[in-house]
């Protein structure tokens, strides 16, 4: 789960890492008041879950509260990579002397949290990795011992040559690690970690992703989720315990299993179609799940054809067919429905679906080809 910069900074502050004073605002007037209260030059930063805010004009400096209001008017409501900005973070500006990078990521290859530090801060770490890899020190942290003082010192020494700065950076890195572990993060980065003209350290920008599998241990994190920026279908799917990702095609798919669902999208593309979504109804056979899935699909106006791809195993084909029948009758589904069924109770499923005139295939390829052929051609 992604959280916003302002939320990430509250995590950092709770662990004693210094962040700039300021607050989050949703209107230009609020921005004015915050700037007035701060009484300093301020930075106004769009709060969105995508990168490239700066280039898109989502970060601006203001010298007066009036200027802050003006700048906020420009940022609030703007679109960054398709996302409308509804919140900005207003912060006292920092007089930057140097910028570095300090981040932790749960690394799949080493199966350890990996600490990455670079004196080349303020830019995307992937770019640094590509262009000047010698400027990154990567250290896979042993999960049993954590970040030992010797290693915190070694990382800090890679960032700074001044011994006083090394000394000050050590506890920041240790706190960042503790924050990462205690909150089940999958990513936590401070970029840039700034030293100002007076030698004070500031986490000027921060990003935290929380491990979805770890959320169960932190029920309070649910309130960090910004349900307003989720596509309504995605919110509904999450609440119905379905895996759904909206895409921009017109063939909706409804599949049991994530790998098969991705593959169904790939096969649609292969045969010249465009998938409208990723949707995994999971392994259980509950007909209600199918109804919920169709409710979600129905709200997507781009959908022209609905494709079911069910490989019965634990999932019973007849259960899916029952749910589909119920949904088609209750929800007044107007798009044509193409169904591929194989496996457990396939025959029973065919019988159920034949009563409502739905085409059933055994082969995924045939079903997909049929769905692609139906696009733009037919209303049910």
């Amino acid at each position, binding site marked *: 789960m992604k959280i916003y910069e302002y939320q990430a900074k509250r995590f950092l502050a709770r662990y004693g890492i210094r962040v700039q004073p300021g607050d989050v605002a949703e209107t230009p007037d609020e921005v004015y008041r915050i700037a007035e209260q701060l009484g300093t030059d301020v930075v106004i930063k769009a709060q969105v879950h995508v990168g490239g805010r700066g280039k898109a004009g989502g970060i601006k400096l203001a010298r007066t509260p009036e200027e802050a209001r003006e700048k906020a008017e420009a940022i609030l409501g703007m679109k960054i990579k398709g996302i409308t900005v509804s919140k900005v973070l207003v912060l006292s500006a920092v007089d930057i002397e140097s910028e570095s990078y300090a981040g932790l990521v*749960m690394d799949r290859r080493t199966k350890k949290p990996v600490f990455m530090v670079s004196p080349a801060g303020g830019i995307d770490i992937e770019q640094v990795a590509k262009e000047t890899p010698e400027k990154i020190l990567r250290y896979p942290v042993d999960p049993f011992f954590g970040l030992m003082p010797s290693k915190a010192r070694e990382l800090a020494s890679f960032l700074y040559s001044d011994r006083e700065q090394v000394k000050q950076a050590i506890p920041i890195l240790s706190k960042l690690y503790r924050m990462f572990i205690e909150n089940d993060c999958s990513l936590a980065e401070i970029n840039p970690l700034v030293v100002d003209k007076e030698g004070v350290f500031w986490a000027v920008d921060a990003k935290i992703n929380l491990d979805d*599998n770890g959320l*169960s241990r932190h029920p309070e994190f649910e309130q960090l989720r910004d349900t307003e920026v989720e596509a309504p279908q995605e919110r509904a799917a999450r609440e119905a315990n379905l895996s759904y990702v909206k*895409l921009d095609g017109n063939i909706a798919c409804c599949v049991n299993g994530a790998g098969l669902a991705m593959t169904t999208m790939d096969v649609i593309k292969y045969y010249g179609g465009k998938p409208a979504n990723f949707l995994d109804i999971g392994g259980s056979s509950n007909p209600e799940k199918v109804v919920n899935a169709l409710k979600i699909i129905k709200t997507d106006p781009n959908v022209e054809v609905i494709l079911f791809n069910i490989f019965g195993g634990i999932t019973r084909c007849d259960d899916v067919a029952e749910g589909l029948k119920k949904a088609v009758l209750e929800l007044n589904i107007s798009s044509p429905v193409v169904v591929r069924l194989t496996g457990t109770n396939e025959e029973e499923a065919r019988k159920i679906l034949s009563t409502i005139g739905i085409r059933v295939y055994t082969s995924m390829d045939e079903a997909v080809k049929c769905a692609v052929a139906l696009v733009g051609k037919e209303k049910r």
Partner: protein
Amino acid sequence: MSIIVDEGTKLLVQGITGRDGSFHTKQMLAYGTNVVAGVTPGKGGETVEGVPVFDNCREAVESTGANTSVLFVPAPFAPDAIFEAKEAGIKTIVCITEGIPTLDMSKLYWWLRFDSVTLIGPNSPGVISPGKSKVGILPSSIFKKGTVGVVSRSGTLTYEIVYNLTLAGFGQSTCIGIGGDQIIGTSFVDVLEMFARDDGTEAVVLIGEIGGTDEQDAAEYIKREFKKPVVAFIAGQTAPPGRRMGHAGAIISGSEGTAREKIEVLKSAGVPVAPIPSRIPELLKETVENH
């Protein structure tokens, strides 16, 4: 021959009295798997489908000689259940459970490695050596005894591909779902190493997906030293970056983990990659013939 599970597998089912645990115990028994014990704390002394239930793994292992366990334990209790199985001396653990916190897996991964315990999963559909033993939730009917090893990060996609293989006459030595999570106990390379040593496996089908670099590592390993023919499929060619596609591990992060890169790396390692699952059998046939 086969790998991981076979006629010698003496299975312990952790969480045997639950809905999934009892259902799949029945299925596994029906397939012929030697299910010797179950564990549910507080339910020691009961039986499920004739299988004795114990309060803890230690008693189960001491009483029955179980050497393999399968987990149908809810995520919050699963790390402890894996821990307990290992402490009781189990050497192969198959974890069906999904949603285990990644940090817990990081610790367990290394801790199990230290004692050379094999963990399949988490979020795995299980392992089957057709005709010998099935451990997990895979649908028995589609498998056929043979010499193709199948390894996959997925569940139903594996069934889809095995179904195609079986229809085309390719039986399987062992099929393994290594699991869809970010940190899993056994990687493609680990399984390939086992297949390399297994006389019963003559060719391998590798089913990858977006996210991580496990397929790239496999490609490098194959190029370096794997001698048997391999064909592959990568799911998620049309998946958008930054979005998790069901599996916790199926996500393109930054530029890492795209299907395109995986396909290219596999091809440059000499592994043909099928564009869609239905092409796998013919590709396998060609590859085996030209090998």
